[in-house]
């Protein structure tokens, strides 16, 4: 809350900056606005920006740096065997934070005084019980080192917070003073304000790049951790996937890749013909009126969340395929299967392919169709022999994008494909995919030091690389194709 309070103070100062700077600008020309370089409002905004922006920037930096510094200080108070091991250290720090927060709550509720909180020691009193009394549950009894560290942490963080407040307010006031001091009739306030706005716009546009960097960095660093504990070769070429949280796991990637590709293939068999024929009908045959109501209905499918398709796979498609195909054919009796997930993903992808293909088919110039009709070709002959070949690159791009979506689809496979990692040809057998295993390894209790958890990051990285590759190729093809007709 104190952070919010601080932000509120800074914003209040900024408003003061607006009013004062604007007033000063006006008084410098005795109310004759024409003599000002910029409109009075710009002087005001200049004051606002100068008072708030540097202060808020300092605040955000402080918020990130302070915990890091505190962690390092606390580390010196802990036994070396704890600090040496990454995981144990992280856990210990989390304990210290929880304890420190608990002490804060206790003080706030009056269960102990500030003095008590600082001088408390584990021999004389049971910290765990005291804190439980104010509603803070601790997992285990508190060791003397942890208590000491937590007390130190509290004190240091309180000091840090105090200094943070002082520094931020000082910067805000300094900015305000600067803005007011430079304000005079000749000052180019508008140019300055516009420069700041432009910088903000550029920063916003760069968020996309930051996101990509974040994705790559987060997955790469944990993947490297994983490959330190598990051989790269065994991961990429291993034929068995059997994680075991007690150790001795086999984390072979190939069964997952096989499941992913098998399900993707089934989905493409469903979605490509259906999506293409839908697009062809809409682009070439449907009357404008039919198109006006068919297209929105198809788009409804695209708007339905994937979890709904997942439930559909789980309770409708799975049992149907099991009872009518798998069991009569003697191919197994699992409701979750490659077929279930593949068919449902295929359906999910129909509107995606059809709307992309529709655009691409519409981009084929009418003159080519006219040329073909003029020679006495029927509509279907024109489509098959002129329109589709002309649109082929774009269609290939659309299909690659659809494949990348199928590979990355998570909910349908989590609910419809099963969890057993297998290298099998039977499409009615439950198999699993990379995405299912990412969800599986990262939900529930996770231990970020064990290879069984970290493998999810390696899987994520692989998934990212595969889909990124497909997307880049697809976008390149589509872009090239567009240029051809522009």
């Amino acid at each position, binding site marked *: 809350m104190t952070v919010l309070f601080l932000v509120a103070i800074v914003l209040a100062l900024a408003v003061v900056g607006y009013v004062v700077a604007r007033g000063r600008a006006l008084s410098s020309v005795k109310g004759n606005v024409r003599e000002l370089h910029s409109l009075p409002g710009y002087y005001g905004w200049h004051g606002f920006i100068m008072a708030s922006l540097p202060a808020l920037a300092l605040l955000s930096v402080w918020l990130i740096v302070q915990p890091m510094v505190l962690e390092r200080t606390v580390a010196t108070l802990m036994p070396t065997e704890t600090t040496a091991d990454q995981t144990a250290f992280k856990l210990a720090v989390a304990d210290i934070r929880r304890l420190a927060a608990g002490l804060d709550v206790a003080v706030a509720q009056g269960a102990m005084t500030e003095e008590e909180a600082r001088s408390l020691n584990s021999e004389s009193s049971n910290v765990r019980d005291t804190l439980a009394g104010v509603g803070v549950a601790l997992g285990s009894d508190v060791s003397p080192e942890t208590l000491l560290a937590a007390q130190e942490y509290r004190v240091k963080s309180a000091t840090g917070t105090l200094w943070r407040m002082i520094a931020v307010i000082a910067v805000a006031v300094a900015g305000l003073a600067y803005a007011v001091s430079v304000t005079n009739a000749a000052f180019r306030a508008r140019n300055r304000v516009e420069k700041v706005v432009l910088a903000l716009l550029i920063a916003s546009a760069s968020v996309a790049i930051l996101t990509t960097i974040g994705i790559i960095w987060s997955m790469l660093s944990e993947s490297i951790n994983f490959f330190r504990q598990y051989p790269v070769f065994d991961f990429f070429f291993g034929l068995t996937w059997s994680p075991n949280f007690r150790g001795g796991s086999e984390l072979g990637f190939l069964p997952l890749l096989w499941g992913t590709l098998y399900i993707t293939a089934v989905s493409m068999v469903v979605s490509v013909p259906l999506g293409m024929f839908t697009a062809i009908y809409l682009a070439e045959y449907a*009357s*404008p009126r039919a198109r006006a109501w068919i297209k929105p209905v198809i788009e409804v499918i695209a708007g339905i969340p994937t979890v709904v398709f997942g439930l559909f796979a789980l309770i409708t498609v799975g049992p149907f395929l099991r009872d009518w195909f798998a069991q009569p054919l003697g191919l197994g009796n699992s409701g979750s299967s490659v077929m279930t997930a593949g068919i449902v993903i295929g359906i999910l992808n129909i509107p995606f392919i059809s709307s992309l293909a529709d655009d691409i088919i519409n981009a084929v*110039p009418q*003159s*080519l*169709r*006219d*040329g*073909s*009709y*003029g*020679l*006495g*070709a*029927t509509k279907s*002959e024109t489509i098959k*022999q*002129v329109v589709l*070949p*002309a649109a082929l690159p774009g269609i290939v791009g659309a299909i690659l994008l659809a494949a990348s979506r199928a590979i990355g689809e998570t909910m349908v496979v989590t609910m419809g494909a099963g969890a057993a990692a297998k290298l099998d040809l039977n499409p009615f057998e439950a198999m699993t995919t990379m995405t299912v295993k990412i969800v599986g390894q990262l939900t529930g209790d996770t231990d970020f030091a064990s290879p069984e958890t970290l493998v999810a990051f390696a899987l994520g990285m692989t998934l990212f690389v595969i889909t990124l590759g497909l997307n880049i190729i697809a976008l390149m093809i589509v872009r090239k194709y567009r240029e051809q007709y522009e």
Partner: protein
Amino acid sequence: MKDINIEERVVSDHKVKITARGVQVHYGTTHALKDVDVDILSGTVTAFIGPSGCGKSTFLRCLNRMNDTVSSARVSGSILLDGEDIYDKRVDPVQLRAKVGMVFQKPNPFPKSIYDNVAYGPKIHGLTRSKAELDAIVESSLKKAALWNEVKDRLAAPGTGLSGGQQQRLCIARAIATSPEVLLMDEPCSALDPIATAQVEELIDELRSQFSVVIVTHSMQQAARVSQRTAFFHLGHLVEYGETGQVFTTPKDPRTESYITGRIG
């Protein structure tokens, strides 16, 4: 492979090929063509001239029912091809277009090889039984379109790689490969440079011996150069129709005269 059927037809010179009576065309609420009567003769180049938007292209597109592909267009009146109403319910426009071929304003070769462009029509109409027959049709069509010598060594190259004039001649070759009886040309030279235009005009004159050619053109000089008969359209009306020499030298209608002398256009 000889063009036996085509040569047979040449005998019946100057017979009426197409008869149009009271043709009206509406595009949505626009009345594009009003009550047009025209007889088009075989073995003749007929030119349609007139200012932009006068309806000449619209009328041309009625002759092989290309207007069917525009959903808002409505055509009434009668157009007879060899005495048969082409707007009759029983007529399949696809079959009609095999008889009445069309070449468009902008060269529009398919994104396929030169060979496949020309072979496209014969293939879809099932005109050939063997590869050799098809080869022969492609060769003769390209020869008739005066393109053979330029492309015979690169038949597998894409048609879109040719120059503008070559592309348009390829489109003509493509159109005559299906052995149509009438060839409609919608401003075939408007996208071409003067040299290419001259080549195509020369070609049109030669085609006259085998097909009835109807050409829409912007340029009166071109109409005068290539056609035997000329029709002048203005604001959706057929103003005047007759021998090209007569229309250009002694126009009956004052509007025709104004257009020819450059007062409307």
